[in-house]
């Protein structure tokens, strides 16, 4: 939302050589594009894809919805309720953790590690494990929905608390009051805008968590309805569900955004998507401690989880069990070859998908920068699509692309495309006018503008998006593999799940999580180094 509004405000007073389309209001342009897309979609579905199960025409989707509206609305209501509970609990937990991290700075690293680990969990595979504790009811989807929001809200709240003006904090301190007073009187108020930016992202995420939780065996809800429809190749049904999920998730995103603007109209739009990287402490010993303490905390949590819920040893696997399974028992070599072989496939298809999405996003962002009327027509659509949980629409993509390695690649590509596009485009629009003026004064070509100004200014946003994309892409890939493709570690997990092979399930979850966390930190380290090397005074 903010991206488009901001571009309008900072656009040069008179763009040189504008097209006539530049004068059409953006709303009209995007509506026109929307209608054109719908018409083309209808046409394709009725001709090229007629009778192929791959694409439903929009009219058929509407008819299907009204015919079975009782069923759809019942399940939609169920999933929405689940997501709402998850949203509540997850955000409460996240805020409590953020408060603890602010008041007890020495805990910050460890809490951060736990929260990041939760973000990196392959949600689809922990549903069966959670179900061991919660039983068959609705608690597992609620728990997953809660876990899905913890990271973004935690990061947003922390960012908000840290944004508190230092001078105001000094005033509190100068009256001899401590950290707690400073927190109550300054930080809480200062955090509201950032917190709302986080909650806004959390709304679709909670919905995503609920639906993914329902994928693996719930009695009601959109997730299980999707899985059944996928098995029966009910294309129209899958489309209805995808459209409903999109509308509800986007609605939540917009509603919370509006609430945030209503409550703090003075605040500028904040983008929590670009979370700053934490700086490493100096000194080898500090750095080692900074690395080991959080790992230890994660393992303590793991044991505590098993102990608190008293899970039977047959189901419960400790870190030691997982290690043994991979490296010391007699079947270990076989397990290793299954897990790491499948992991290789997953990583390869995921990276390919990510790169495709990234290149497409950068190219689109540059086209939008160079052709303003295209930006005005398409950007609002891209911004809206960024907020929807693409994973929920996985079944639609599965039907369209087919079941195979390409599906994973396609889903990851679509997932990475929209956030990268919006974040990079927004960063490019913030290229200082002065720099553009210098380039213009030498009549620089578009290529020179791109190379010298737009691409470099988008690098921080690009790297921040990439960091977040590591866990989310792996989640998307495993969901696709679990639901459809029969390849990769997602397929290994679904097989283990159907055979009640909890050893393999735990090992896969542990390996995937570790890979995601390491990937996140590798990108973060690269990001830190690049930003330092660029010595960029670009503010984010």
């Amino acid at each position: 939302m903010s991206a488009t509004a901001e571009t309008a405000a900072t656009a040069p007073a008179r763009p040189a050589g504008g097209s006539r389309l530049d004068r059409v209001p953006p709303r009209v342009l995007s509506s026109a594009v929307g209608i054109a897309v719908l018409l083309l979609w209808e046409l394709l579905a009725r001709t090229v894809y007629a009778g192929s199960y791959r694409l439903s025409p929009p009219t058929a989707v509407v008819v299907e919805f009204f015919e079975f509206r009782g069923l759809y609305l019942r399940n939609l209501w169920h999933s929405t309720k689940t997501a709402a509970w998850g949203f509540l609990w997850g955000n409460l937990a996240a805020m409590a953790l953020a408060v603890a991290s602010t008041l007890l700075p020495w805990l910050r690293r460890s809490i951060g590690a736990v929260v990041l680990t939760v973000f990196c969990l392959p949600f689809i595979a922990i549903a069966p494990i959670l179900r061991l504790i919660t039983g068959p009811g609705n608690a597992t989807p609620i728990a997953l929905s809660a876990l899905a929001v913890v990271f973004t809200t935690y990061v947003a709240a922390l960012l908000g608390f840290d944004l508190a003006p230092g001078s105001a904090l000094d005033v509190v301190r100068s009256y001899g009051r401590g950290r707690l007073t400073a927190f109550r009187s300054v930080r809480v108020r200062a955090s509201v805008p950032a917190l709302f930016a986080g909650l806004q992202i959390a709304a679709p995420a909670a919905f995503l968590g609920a639906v993914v939780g329902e994928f693996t065996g719930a009695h009601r809800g959109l997730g299980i309805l999707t899985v059944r429809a996928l098995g029966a190749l009910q294309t129209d049904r899958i489309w209805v569900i995808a459209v409903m999920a999109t509308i509800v998730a986007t609605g939540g995103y917009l509603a919370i955004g509006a609430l945030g603007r209503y409550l703090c109209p003075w605040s500028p739009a904040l983008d929590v998507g670009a979370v700053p990287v934490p700086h490493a402490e100096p000194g080898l010993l500090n750095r080692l401690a900074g690395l080991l303490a959080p790992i230890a905390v994660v393992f303590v949590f793991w044991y505590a989880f098993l102990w608190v819920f008293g899970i039977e040893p047959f189901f419960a696997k400790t870190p030691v069990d997982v290690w043994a399974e991979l490296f010391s028992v007699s079947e270990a070599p076989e397990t290793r070859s299954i897990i790491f072989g499948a992991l290789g496939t997953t990583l390869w298809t995921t990276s390919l998908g990510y790169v495709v999405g990234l290149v497409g996003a950068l190219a689109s962002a540059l086209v939008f920068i160079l052709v303003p009327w295209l930006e005005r027509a398409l950007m609002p659509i891209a911004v809206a699509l960024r907020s929807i949980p693409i994973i929920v629409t996985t079944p639609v993509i599965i039907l369209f692309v087919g079941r195979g390695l390409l599906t994973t690649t396609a889903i990851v590509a679509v997932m990475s495309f929209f956030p990268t596009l919006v974040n990079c485009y927004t960063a490019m629009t913030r290229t200082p006018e002065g720099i553009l003026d210098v380039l213009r004064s030498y009549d620089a070509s578009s290529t020179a503008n791109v190379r010298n100004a737009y691409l470099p200014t988008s690098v921080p946003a690009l790297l921040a998006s990439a960091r977040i994309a590591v866990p989310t892409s792996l989640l998307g890939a495993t969901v696709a593999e679990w639901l459809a493709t029969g390849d990769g570690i997602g397929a290994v997990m679904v097989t283990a799940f159907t055979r009640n092979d909890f050893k393999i399930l735990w090992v896969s979850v542990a390996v995937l999580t570790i890979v995601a966390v390491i990937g996140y930190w590798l990108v973060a380290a690269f990001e830190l180094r690049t930003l330092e090397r660029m010595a960029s005074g670009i503010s984010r």
Partner: protein
Amino acid sequence: MARRGAPVDVVGVGRTFALAGDEVTALSGFDMHVPAGGFIALIGPSGCGKSTALRLVAGLDTPDEGTIDMDGSSPDEMRRGQRIGVAFQDPSLLPWRTVTTNIRLALELVGRRHDTKAVDELVELVGLQGFEKARPSQLSGGMRQRVAIARSLVTKPDLLLLDEPFGALDALTRQQLNDELQRIWTARGTTTILVTHSIPEAVYVADEVLVMSPRPGSVVARHTIGFERPRTRELLLTDRFHAEVEAVSASLHRSEGQVVQLDTDPS
């Protein structure tokens, strides 16, 4: 290669900005004539439209009324011919480039990236030896401005537009750069328009000082500065220099005090 600079003729130029539903007239009836190879200083109260005027001459913006002509070319044609060098109030350096590569940017843009000698000369001229590899974030504000000045000069432009380029510099460095600017200008014959807030600076370097009225900006006084060149620092101590500074200062104060009587001739 002393190419002769282009003459600049600005006649009756006006520029109005739309600002949040309101209108701001930055310039109105702005006239300026700079002969080929001339050196003009523009001086006036903050917000009177000096930067706006410079952007119009640079072809970065178009006037709502009036004409700007440079020896038969429009500002846009001059810009497209890559004959202009600019250094704005804000140095606008690329944060990811070093001092050297920031200066070289201008050469790259005009297709002469291999002219390393020109870059080295200018680094020395603006006194940044030893900082060649530094990035803008590692430089002081004044050093950044000097990089911007070097960048504006490196392509040997026919028209040089400087918008308060010495704002963040100490008096001594400022004086040094003024001397260098004068030397380059004499050698190259580049037509130069300098916006400054310092009256002594304007009187020291320019052939003619134009005093502008507060917004909407127009020229309310012209002072031809007849001192022989090359001008040296001894000039700064002379009575005729002080008299000239006093005269410009008086017009500036008059222009600020008499916003309503813009049309009366103050000089």
